């Protein structure tokens, strides 16, 4: 019984809760047990069982009185960079390891107001800088998937939202928030066999989200199906007066848009995403995705996005530059950890606090960002990168103006890698985001859909990209692809748990 309850989709759960065949508290208790069971995966920084029970009891009261909320009783988890009032919010950094926000992020507030049950806050790469969760102050999360050929080798869940995807793939939450700056929702979704959608830049509020690179950061959702992702995105999206970069664009009904009909839709296949040396696994899966969409009536066309190979270098100038500015606020004065012996001067206090509070990857990016913004280099690096960013955005604009409806690409250049032997060279690690960064730079909505398994038996995703604010159409074609692929995810019985 408990396990079958965990495998229900959010929509199925809602229907049973509405009919009062299940109580939100029962669902919650099952999920709390699962959160405890999967502790070896280190998916959560903070578990919130007491909050969850209170949320569930409130939901049950509302179901009883006939005044239920749209997401009432659904067990949910937040990436640990959404400020949650009264609940530890660390961004998986030592420097924020004692931070209890006195306010709530807009996205988590909206989900709370819609009735979700908070299971906890999930682990991530420190300040969302990474593709593995290895840079977390709390140690890496583990992927609930392992390769059948190497069943004891623990793998990364991807990142930066890796705790969020590990939790959902391991049935400890039905869905979770993530944030995506250069691929941090889509890449871990791909590694964990989940759906992950990054909406258009400006679609949801960034208020109360620990900032990494403000011109790129965007909140989104991970779920085990496209329809569940659509359901949660509905209640996250929308304009927020507290975030001047959130757009005043109406939010349509995402679920209503999902029909699975994609006849006549023109799908662009960018030739630059098939570089020499692309893994045969990825190539095969991409071809399969193309064929499946074609069978359902979509029209496939080769397209060109000529500045694709410049996206990563642009990203690794702009994101660190913005980060170096955003992370200046962690100074040991107003909040966060201050070193025990701050020294004699204010500068000593800053330098010691920041030197001890940030991890190696965060420091590397702050250094890089400070360098490219420093006197004499600003034009050569920062301004140059912003100009090339324009060209990258124009590439997409032209393709969509020419009538292409969606773009189909792989999500990642490979599947999940070993926690013990990750790429050592920073650039090799950065290449993980090669297919996700260009659409991030252009601010476009994109979704990763599980599309099959690699030769090693690990999940791989395909990415669909849409014009700005076309999340409805994007979810519809993602649903068509999901339906065609018939991907088999994990079950509660097949989750990898390392032996203690």
């Amino acid at each position: 019984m408990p396990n079958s309850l965990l495998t229900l989709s959010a929509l199925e759960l809602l229907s049973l809760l509405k009919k009062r065949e299940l109580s939100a508290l029962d669902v919650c208790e099952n999920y709390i047990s699962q959160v405890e069971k999967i502790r070896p995966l280190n998916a959560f920084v903070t578990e919130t069982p007491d909050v969850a029970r209170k949320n569930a009891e409130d939901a049950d009261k509302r179901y009883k009185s006939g005044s239920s909320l749209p997401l009432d009783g659904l067990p949910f988890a937040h990436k640990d960079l959404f400020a949650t009032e009264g609940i530890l919010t660390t961004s998986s950094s030592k420097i924020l390891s004692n931070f209890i926000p006195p306010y709530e992020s807009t996205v988590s507030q909206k989900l709370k107001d819609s009735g979700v049950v908070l299971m906890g806050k999930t682990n991530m790469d420190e300040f969302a800088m990474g593709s593995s969760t290895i840079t977390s102050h709390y140690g890496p999360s583990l992927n609930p998937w392992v390769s059948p050929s190497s069943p004891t080798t623990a793998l990364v869940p991807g990142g930066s939202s890796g705790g969020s995807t590990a939790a959902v793939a391991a049935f400890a939450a039905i869905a979770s928030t993530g944030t995506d700056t250069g691929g941090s929702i889509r890449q871990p979704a791909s590694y964990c066999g989940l759906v992950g959608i990054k909406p258009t830049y400006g679609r949801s509020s960034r208020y109360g989200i620990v900032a990494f690179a403000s011109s790129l950061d965007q909140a989104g959702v991970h779920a085990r199906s496209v329809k569940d992702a659509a359901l949660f995105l509905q209640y996250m999206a929308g304009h927020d007066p507290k975030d001047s970069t959130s757009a005043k664009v109406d939010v349509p009904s995402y679920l209503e848009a999902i029909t699975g009909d994609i006849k006549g839709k023109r799908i662009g296949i960018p030739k630059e995403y098939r570089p020499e040396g692309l893994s045969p696994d990825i190539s095969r899966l991409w071809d399969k995705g193309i064929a499946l969409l074609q069978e359902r009536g979509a029209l496939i066309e080769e397209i060109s996005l000529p500045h694709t190979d410049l996206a990563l270098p642009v990203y690794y100038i702009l994101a660190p530059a913005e980060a170096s500015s955003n992370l200046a606020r962690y100074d040991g004065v107003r909040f966060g950890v201050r070193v025990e012996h701050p020294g004699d001067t204010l500068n000593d206090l800053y330098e010691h606090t920041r030197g001890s509070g940030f991890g190696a990857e965060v420091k590397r990016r702050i250094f890089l960002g400070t360098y490219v913004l420093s006197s004499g280099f600003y034009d050569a690096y920062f301004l140059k990168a912003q100009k090339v960013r324009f060209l990258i955005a124009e590439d997409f604009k032209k393709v969509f103006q020419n009538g292409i409806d969606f773009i189909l690409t792989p999500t990642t250049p490979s599947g999940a890698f070993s926690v013990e032997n990750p790429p050592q060279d920073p650039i090799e690690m950065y290449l993980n985001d090669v297919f996700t960064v260009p659409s991030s730079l252009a601010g476009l909505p994109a979704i990763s859909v599980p599309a099959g398994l690699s030769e090693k038996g690990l999940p791989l995703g395909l990415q669909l990209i849409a014009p700005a604010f076309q999340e409805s159409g994007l979810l519809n074609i993602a649903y068509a692809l999901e339906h065609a692929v018939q991907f088999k995810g994990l079950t509660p019985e097949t989750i990898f748990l390392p032996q203690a």
Partner: protein
Amino acid sequence: MSDASAVTKETVLKIAKLARIEISEKDIPPLVQEMCGILRWIECLNRVDTSSTPPLSTPLQELNISQPLRIDTVTDGNIVGKILSNAPEVALDMFVVPKVVE
């Protein structure tokens, strides 16, 4: 664009000062090496002619989304306790830092 190999120990120390991050002697050589590597990697941007290209500082620019300013009114207040609740050191409802004025 400058020569990436120009990043030296002195550059890293200067950046550390600007970024207010204390750095230990042993962390300097790997940082020099990594920064050189990354800067060399991003030098490929040089081959693109951007003489007539405008910079894109936010995607909203391309998406034609305006960013209206809110009316400048007070939306909260009297939350000194909340604001100070996470401070490492507080006295007289103020943040405490080492002495900055002689």
